[in-house]
């Protein structure tokens, strides 16, 4: 089978489900709104980081990105719709690749637009407090943030393929991201910075003091996503649909 028609079909699946388009819209709205809010709030913190403040909407926004990745996959498992999909495209690897391409593509485009809008919105509020940011740092933050959204969506997609359930994914991933880093935080020493969210968020800070830099951090997050996708693909390949 050719890849292009399968890709077109998968893209059409996202476009014809209002909930999926809504989730992408939520990524944009939530991130931009929280960044704008951070821009106008007090910035006299000791470890104030203007880039992270401007892009702090990522923290709530990533939940929507995770939900997007999870729901694109879980919508297939509703009522065993996956059987219909795999009867239409029996080459499971190709089908999965097309699905991931659609998730990655749409999350990246929305992510880039979102981070750009969030930066603009926050800078409007920050004013002089953001003067210290160079153009390079801002570009890095915007691009990195877009990639981060994409990687989180893919991580969720991989886990959902493994669990065959969006609920299982969300209830694993969201507490993980919201809580774990704070709970084990300092106790675990340098380990927390290698968690998918912590590693990936280095790119949206102006300065970093850990082992990971902006791009190596994203690479670590990509490693997590890749691992989740491989496990998901393995499960998809081996199991009865």
């Amino acid at each position, binding site marked *: 089978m050719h890849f292009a028609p399968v890709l077109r079909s998968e893209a059409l699946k996202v476009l014809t489900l209002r909930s999926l388009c809504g989730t992408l819209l939520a990524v944009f709205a939530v991130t931009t709104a929280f960044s704008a809010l951070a821009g106008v709030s007090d910035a006299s913190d000791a470890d104030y980081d203007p880039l992270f403040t401007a892009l702090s909407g990522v923290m709530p926004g990533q939940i929507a990105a995770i939900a997007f990745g999870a729901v694109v996959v879980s919508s297939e498992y509703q*009522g065993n719709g996956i059987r219909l999909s795999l*009867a239409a495209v*029996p080459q499971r690897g190709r089908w999965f690749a097309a699905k991931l391409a659609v998730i990655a593509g749409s999350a990246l485009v929305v992510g880039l637009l979102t981070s750009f809008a969030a930066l603009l919105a926050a800078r409007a509020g920050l004013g002089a407090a953001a003067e210290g940011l160079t153009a390079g740092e801002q570009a890095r933050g915007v691009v990195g943030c877009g990639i981060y959204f994409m990687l989180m969506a893919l991580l969720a997609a991989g886990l959902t393929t493994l669990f065959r359930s969006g609920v299982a994914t969300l209830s694993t991933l969201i507490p993980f991201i919201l809580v774990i880093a704070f709970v084990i935080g300092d106790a675990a020493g340098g380990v927390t910075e290698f968690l998918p969210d912590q590693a990936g968020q280095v790119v949206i800070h102006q300065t970093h003091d850990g082992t990971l830099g902006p791009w190596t951090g994203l690479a670590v997050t990509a490693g997590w996503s890749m691992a989740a996708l491989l496990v998901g693909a393995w499960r998809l390949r081996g199991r009865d649909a």
Partner: protein
Amino acid sequence: MTSIDVQNLTKEYGTRRAVDDLTFTVRPGRVTGFLGPNGAGKSTTMRLVLGLDRPTSGTAAVGGRPYSVLHEPLRHVGALLDARAAHGARTARDHLRVLAASNRIPARRVDEVLEETGIASVARRRVRTYSLGMRQRLGIAAALLGDPEVVMLDEPSNGLDPEGIIWIRELLRRLAAEGRTVLVSSHLMNETASFADHLVVLGRGRLLADTPMREFIDARVQPSVRIRTSDATALKAALARHGHDAVEGDDGYWTVPHARVDDIGRAVSAAGVPILELSSAEGTLEQAYLDLTAAEAEFTAPYQEA
């Protein structure tokens, strides 16, 4: 010629054998009824043919090739497995557009099958607002989308209203007349008898019968003759002379078992017995099926499908 070939197919779920060394061929140009109690392995066999479940051993092929190597499979095989498979938040039209896109089926086919299955007027409504019968029609529309030579439907008359049942019967007959290969599972005997030419019967995953429907019935159920008369004594005497016996039913009819209407008609009229009504009672598929499953008592035990 595109047939479905199942060869020594076995599928185990844990320790349970859902399909047990099954071998049969579904040929084109006729409707093959796929019968068996719940859990006999009908749906599992269909999933194995579609490459959705992996067989423990054996093979299933469509037109001589495994389903998974078919190029744009919806153009060769159309299947309805479960009417609930369409996502409730999509419209019926979008559901079909998504399927059509993946197999490069032209968009006009979407409107054609919507028209053909009688849901064109509700095609822009979300599937979750559909009744079971409408979903069933949508599932059939999806099966017909690629104009396939092979059509495989699992319990298509579920939830259909009386008009729908007549419609599906005519649709199946037409598909077979067009030379397509049609496999239809059902547990409704009278329904199956109305459209099937050939039968494949399963019990606990094993093949119990693979014969033309008429032969299947005639081999198991003897025809009988029903008579209404105003002179029962004369009737009994006339029948006795020809070595037949008659049993009186509650409704005033006499039934002559194991007899053909031609013989009985001649015999009683020659004897001058006043006949008010005379008819032949052909064996039904239901009787034949129950006779078969009674003989294979172990197969009638209810076994819920996975």
